[in-house]
C-alpha cells in the first residue's frame, strides 16, 4: 500500500512454455536491482531509511552526540523543564532527558534487531516446514502456532518475565519466543502458495529432492516477503519492549530506555508532564520509520502489490 499515490506498473502477459517458466524464475531473481530502483522512488521509505541510519549512528556512538552522561543525576535539578542548555529538560531525579533519549536508542535497536531475528528465524523455519511438508507435520505445527497465538501477547510476556525476572536479556528472549508464531503463519501461507507454482512442480517432476528444492527454489522466493515481514515486525517488537519497560518488567535502571522513561513520566504526570513527551515521540518515529521502509520494500520486491 502506498502512502503517496503512485501508479502500479503493469504486468505483461507471459506465455506458459517451459522455457518461459524458467526464464520467469530467473527474471524474478535478477529483480533485486530492479527492486532497489523501485524502492528508491518511494520517498517515505527513503525518509524512514535515513532516520534509521541516524538512529543507528546514535546507537553505536551515543557518547559523541549526547551532551551529558545519561546516568548522572543532579538531584538539585530534578524535574526541571526544558532550557537552552538542556533542550528536553530533566527527568524525575535530575538526569538530562536528551542524553537519555539518545542512549535509549541503543536498547531499542538492540532489542528490535535481536528479538526480530530470533522471532523471524524460528517463525520462518516452523512455518516453512509446515507449509512445505504438509500432512501431519503441518497439523501439529499449526496447532502449536494456534496455541501460542491464542494467548494475548502482552499477558504472556508479563507472566513470563515475572517468572524469570526482568532484564535486557530476558526481554529479548521472551519477546522472540512469543511473537514468532505470527510469522510462522505468514511463512506457511507463502510457502503453501509457492508449492503449487509451476516451477516447483516442474522441479519435483524432474526429480529434485527436498533439500535442493528448498534451497534453490523456495528460499530465494520467499526471501523477499520475509524481509518485508521482518521489517514490518520490528515496529511491533519495539512497542512490545517499550510496553514491558513501561510496566517495570523490562530493562532496569539506570539504563536509559524509552519505555522506562514513560513509566517515570506517568508517576510524575501532574508535576513534570514534559518528561512524557520525548520518549513517546521517539518510539513513534522509530516504529514509523520501520513501517515505511517495510512498505517501500514490499512495493519494491513484490510489484504485484500483495496487501
Amino acid at each position, binding site marked *: *500500500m*502506498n*502512502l*503517496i*499515490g503512485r501508479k502500479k506498473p503493469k504486468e505483461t502477459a507471459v506465455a506458459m512454455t517451459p522455457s518461459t517458466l524458467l526464464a520467469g524464475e530467473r527474471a524474478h531473481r535478477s529483480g533485486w536491482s530492479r527492486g532497489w530502483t523501485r524502492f528508491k522512488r518511494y520517498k517515505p521509505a527513503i525518509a524512514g531509511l535515513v532516520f534509521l541510519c541516524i538512529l543507528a549512528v546514535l546507537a553505536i556512538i551515543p557518547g559523541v552526540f549526547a551532551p551529558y552522561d545519561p546516568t548522572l543525576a543532579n538531584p538539585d535539578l530534578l524535574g526541571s523543564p526544558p532550557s537552552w542548555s538542556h533542550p528536553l529538560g530533566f527527568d524525575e531525579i535530575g538526569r538530562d532527558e536528551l542524553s537519555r533519549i539518545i542512549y535509549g536508542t541503543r536498547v531499542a535497536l538492540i532489542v528490535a534487531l535481536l528479538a526480530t531475528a530470533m522471532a523471524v528465524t524460528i517463525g520462518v523455519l516452523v512455518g516453512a516446514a509446515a507449509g512445505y511438508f504438509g500432512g501431519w507435520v503441518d497439523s501439529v505445527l*499449526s*496447532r*502449536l502456532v*494456534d*496455541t501460542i*497465538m*491464542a*494467548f*494475548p*501477547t*502482552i*499477558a*504472556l510476556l*508479563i*507472566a513470563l518475565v*515475572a*517468572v524469570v525476572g526482568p532484564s535486557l536479556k530476558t526481554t529479548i528472549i521472551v519477546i522472540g519466543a512469543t511473537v514468532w508464531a505470527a510469522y510462522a503463519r505468514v511463512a506457511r501461507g507463502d510457502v503453501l502458495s509457492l508449492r503449487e507454482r509451476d516451477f516447483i512442480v516442474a522441479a519435483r517432476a524432474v526429480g529434485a529432492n527436498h533439500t535442493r528444492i528448498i534451497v534453490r527454489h523456495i528460499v530465494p522466493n520467499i526471501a523477499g516477503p520475509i524481509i518485508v515481514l521482518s521489517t514490518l515486525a520490528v*515496529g511491533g517488537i519495539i*512497542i512490545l519492549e*517499550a*510496553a514491558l519497560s*513501561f*510496566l517495570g518488567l523490562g530493562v532496569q535502571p539506570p539504563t536509559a530506555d524509552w519505555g522506562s522513561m*514513560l513509566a517515570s*513520566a*506517568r508517576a510524575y*504526570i*501532574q508535576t513534570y*508532564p514534559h518528561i*512524557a*513527551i520525548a*520518549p*513517546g515521540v521517539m*518510539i*513513534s*518515529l522509530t*516504529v*514509523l520509520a520501520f*513501517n*515505511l521502509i517495510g*512498505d517501500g520494500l514490499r512495493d519494491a520486491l513484490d510489484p504485484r502489490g500483495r*496487501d
Partner: protein
Amino acid sequence: MLRYVIRRLLQGFIVVFLISIATFGILHLTPGDPVLILIGETGRTQLTPQQIQQVRHYWGLDRPLYQQYFTWLGHMAKGDFGESVIQVGTPVRTIIWRAAPVTLKLNAMALILAIAIAIPAGILAGIKQYSFFDYFSNVGATFGVSVPSFWIALMAIIIFALKLGWLPPYGVDSWKGYIAPVLVLSLEQMAIITRLMRSTTIETLGQDYVRTARAKGVAESNVLSRHVVRNSLLPVITVIGYRIAFLLSGTIIIETVFAVPGIGQLFVNSVYHLDYQVVQAVVFVLSVLVVLANLATDLVYAYIDPRIRLT
C-alpha cells in the same frame, strides 16, 4: 461444509487442550513448592499444616503429574479456579466475574467504534484511490500502528484531563471515564481495519464481475452496494475476528494506565502480587475466549463463502 465444521471444531478442541496443558504447566515451571505458590505468603504464615495438606490434596499435588492435570482440569471445568491469596478467601471465579463487565464494555465499545469508522473510511479510500481522502486516511492508519497506545493514553490524560479538565484522569466512576480508554483502545484496530478494508475494496474493484456489471449498465451505486461492498467486507470480517486477541492484549495496558478496574488491571496487579491462581485463571479464560472467537469467525466465514459451504 460439514466436514469443514467438524475438522475445525476438532482443531479448536486440540488447541484448548494444549492451552490447558500450558497453563497447568506454568505452576510447575515456577521455582518453589507448588502448594506454597498457590497459598501465597498469607497462607504460608497463617494456615495450619493440616490446612496446607488439605489444599495440597484438593489440587492433587500429592499425586503423580498426569493425575494432577486431570484434577486441575476437573476443577477448572466446573469453574473452580481456586482462591485469591490477596483478596483472602474470595474465589477467583468471583473476582473475574466482577471485573469482566467493565472489560467487556470497554472492548465492545472500542470494537464498535473502530468498525464504525474504519469500514466506511476504508471503502471510501478504496473507491477514491489516490485522492486526498485516501492519502489522509493512509497517513492516519500508518500513524495508528506506529504510535504506542500507552503513550497516547498519557498524552490524552495530560491534555484532556489535567490541562483541559474535560475528562476524569482515572477510573470509570462516571461515563466520562470511558471516553479516553475506548478511544485509545480503538485506535490501533481502526488503523488496521482501515488499511485492510481499503485494499480489499481495491482488489474487488479490479475484479472481472465488477467490470461486467458496469459494462451491463448497472448503476454505480448498485455496483458498489451489491457487489463491491459485500465482497470486500468478507475478508475484513474474518480479520476482525482474529484481532480479538490483540484487542485483549491492548486492554491490559490501557486498563492499567487509566486505572480501569477490569480484567486487564486485575491481571497486572495479580502478577505484581504473585496472586498465582488469579493469573492462571485469567490467562486460561482469555486464551479460551480467543480460540472461541477464532472458531466462530472461521465458521461464519465458512458459511458465507460459498466455495466452502458447498463442499
